[in-house]
């Protein structure tokens, strides 16, 4: 989650949204022609074509079928049990350490193994009890006492207790190289009884429950079940619906049903296998050929055809993904608000949605996505208006235009499309844009070191609370230096931190309304568009749902025959 990009390989044919590399094709040279006049005897006729076809049939008959296993039961008698769900994904996981890992391909797996005290609601705007059943809060709002769910066991059969919860949250807080920052408001965690956990805060903290719902605060056995941290995360143990089976790095990762899962009768599936299939086309073909049941991120260009494909269900889940054009305010002339506003006003967002998302999205008005609490739909933002854009340029320090560079990660065809459209749209303002393509790793590094003029970035929410995004986005003193733009509006920064400690909903809403309006007026980034999460599944997959934060609960998924 967050905005991080991961490198994966895409192919030119039909490639739409993944980073990649140009194909390298080895070719030999032609041999010389034989001398003229060479005679040739007639060889015995052989039915080579038949031999070839026969060989192919023989090879085809080898091995087993590629089916996903069978499921018993069916729609008539409720969800069927059994089967192996195969998820074809874009890239491999990095690590199963939930306290330090940032890449989605790891997060989506260990979320099936390890669970937090609270989980995100299906609409992504709140939390609901998960391994905890409820809490009480002290009058000074600094002490939360959580009651743990009874009868919860780890996949090794041992019961979960408050000692495990204390250990887990303490480890997450201490993860300096990971998600520890999310728990900075926590002063201490104690376990007064096996079924009770007390979290003491340094100060009243509105996003606490949202923070505790983050995967980094998921519960694992105390002291890693007697193992070292490294050994534990080689095959982690948790209370989730699935438990560890194997991970063939760069190839496939498999989880199997946890027989001790606390939700009666779940999970329905026997196992889930994530296979690494970097090519968009191959994932789609695997789905059509029945080799995979879930295609993670089909290319936008294929969404309409997949909707019309029989045996395939195309899902577009509400998401919190927002794409932005970022300006580096340490580079001239982007410290000038009029320049930023002019560029923001010159971008036809509807055209971008059509060209990049094939219509599967909508223009953004705020740097908050609509699926996040406290999103303000009334914030108009800076929408396409060329006349206003020209007026802003006239008021700027560079009224006659300038030359600038647009940094784009190579291999992202979507990004190149956006950059090309923006390049043309800025010409009427006298802005000459040079597109600079660098490989994703280098582009990210340059962005983080503020070595760019304009670039593209995006965000998806990790917690169902706007605090993380707001701090990341507008506080120049956060690690991210205002989304790596160096934007600094002291009023917006002050309001952001005030909102963190404001518990009254209406007061928080008022603060976030101001933050969204002010940051839009400052045009610290051009908010481009909101897009859904695209997943294609075979039609026999039921109950597959992705929350706006990107999490999915595979305990609810089942397959009919």
């Amino acid at each position, binding site marked *: 989650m*967050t905005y*991080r990009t991961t*490198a*994966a*390989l895409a*192919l*030119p*044919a039909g490639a739409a949204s993944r980073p990649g590399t140009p*194909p*390298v*094709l*080895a070719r*030999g040279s032609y*041999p010389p022609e*034989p*001398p003229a*006049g*060479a*005679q*040739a*005897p*007639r*060889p*015995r006729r052989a039915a*080579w074509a038949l031999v070839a076809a026969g060989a*192919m049939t023989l*090879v*085809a008959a*080898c*091995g087993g079928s*590629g089916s996903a296993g069978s499921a018993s039961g069916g729609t008539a008698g409720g969800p069927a049990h059994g089967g192996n769900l195969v998820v*074809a994904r874009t890239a491999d996981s990095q690590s199963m350490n939930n306290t330090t890992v*940032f890449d989605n391909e790891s997060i989506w797996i260990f979320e099936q193994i390890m669970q937090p005290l609270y989980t995100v609601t299906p609409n992504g705007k709140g939390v609901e009890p998960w391994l905890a059943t409820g809490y009480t809060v002290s009058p000074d709002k600094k002490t939360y006492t959580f009651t743990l769910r009874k009868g919860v066991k780890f996949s090794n059969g041992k019961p979960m207790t408050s000692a495990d919860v204390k250990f887990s949250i303490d480890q997450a807080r201490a993860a300096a*190289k990971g*998600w520890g*920052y999310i728990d900075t408001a926590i002063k201490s965690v104690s376990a007064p009884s096996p079924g009770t956990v007390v979290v003491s805060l340094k100060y009243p903290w509105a996003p606490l429950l949202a923070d505790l719902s983050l995967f980094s605060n998921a519960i694992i056995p105390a002291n890693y079940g007697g193992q070292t941290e*490294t050994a534990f995360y080689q095959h982690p143990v948790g209370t989730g619906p699935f438990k560890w089976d194997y991970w*063939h*790095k*760069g*190839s*496939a990762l498999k989880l199997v049903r946890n027989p001790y899962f606390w939700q009666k009768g779940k999970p329905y599936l026997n196992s889930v296998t994530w296979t*690494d299939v970097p*090519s968009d*086309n*191959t994932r789609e*073909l*695997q789905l059509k*050929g029945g*080799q995979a049941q879930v295609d993670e991120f089909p290319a936008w260009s294929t969404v309409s055809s997949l909707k019309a494909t029989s045996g395939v269900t195309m899902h577009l889940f509400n998401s919190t993904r927002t794409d932005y054009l970022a300006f580096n305010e340490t580079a001239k002339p982007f410290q000038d608000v009029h320049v930023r506003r002019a560029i923001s006003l010159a971008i036809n967002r509807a055209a971008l949605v059509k060209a990049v998302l094939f219509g599967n999205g909508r223009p953004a008005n705020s740097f908050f996505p609509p699926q996040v609490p406290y999103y303000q739909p009334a914030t108009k933002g800076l929408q396409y208006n060329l006349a206003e854009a020209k007026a802003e340029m006239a008021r700027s320090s560079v009224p006659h235009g300038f030359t600038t560079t647009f940094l784009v990660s190579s291999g992202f065809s979507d990004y190149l499309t956006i950059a090309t459209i923006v390049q043309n749209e800025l010409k009427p303002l006298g802005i000459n844009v040079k597109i600079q393509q*660098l*490989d994703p*790793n*280098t582009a*990210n590094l*340059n962005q*983080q070191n503020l070595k760019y003029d304009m670039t593209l970035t995006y965000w998806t929410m990790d917690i169902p609370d706007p605090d993380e995004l707001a701090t*990341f986005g507008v506080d120049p003193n956060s*690690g*991210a230096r205002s989304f790596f733009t160096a934007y600094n509006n002291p009023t917006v920064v002050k309001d952001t931190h005030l909102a963190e400690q404001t518990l009254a909903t209406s007061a928080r809403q008022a603060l976030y309304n101001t933050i969204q309006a002010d940051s839009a007026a400052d045009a610290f980034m051009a908010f481009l568009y909101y897009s859904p999460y695209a997943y294609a599944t075979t039609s026999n997959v039921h109950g597959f749902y992705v929350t706006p934060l990107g999490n999915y609960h595979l305990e609810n998924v089942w397959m009919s025959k």
Partner: protein
Amino acid sequence: MGRMTFVLRRLLQLVPVAIGVTIVVFFMIHLIPGDPARTILGIHATPRTVALLHAEWGLNRPLVDQYWLFMDRLLHGNLGVSLYYGGPASSLLLSHLPPTLWIITYGSVLAVLISVPLAMIAASRKDGARDHLVRAVPLIGLGMPPFWLGFLLIYAFAIKLHWFPVSGYGSGFLGHVRSMFLPSLTVALAIAPVVIRSLRASMLNVLGAEYVTTARSKGVPAYRLFLRHVLRNAVIPAVTVLGINIAFLIGGTVIIETVFAIPGLGQLMINSIFQRDFTVVQGVSLVFAIMVILLNLLADIAYALLDPRVRFSR
């Protein structure tokens, strides 16, 4: 020079070449901007945490020191630890090697199975209709980008006919045979046109030789003439052509591996470059280099075995 001495000498030559490859790869990968620590730590990384990880990996040391450290480990049979995954780079390499070997071997076998009969058919009627057909049609395989050819084969034989899995490596020997057929065929169809032309040209050369005329005048049957006298002599240059193409293929399997979702060394190499997983990139490059050298050695040995006039002296 005896055969064993020849092979040993060629294997010894492998050492300086491999060292040269390590030097080039090591310094090239470090020339590219990018930071594995940033890849792993994400956007929330502070300069302190990045520095901690650099120190843990030894990336804060001078580049020459890092190279010596790498060579020191290598000489002790240790390729180092993958910066991205955290596990030993050697186990990653070992798990990704078999699929690549499968593609190369299976693809080469299929290329030979396609090329030999077609070259014989073409050579049997020089400038005839079937000669032109055999020379022209396989060129489609040569001219078509492999990813496109691969998708066409998947569509025809996996989606429509359901003869093969869409992609993947399969499990068990028979599973591999079945799963790796289409990727190997894609490779074979790209190599075959060159081999066919080479073989056809040599066959036509041999067919003009006096010993063939003699054999024919003795009444040797056509099939026997072709198999014993023509093919055996004509195959020698084709072995060289095949060897060169397979060596070329070793570094070029990444596209096939991507199209068919095969977890081979090409995929590992590309992903490791993107992730700046220096140790793995170095390891894969070394394996590729050794494979190319060994393949050339095998081609030389095969050449000498096929042609008694060639001595093990080069």
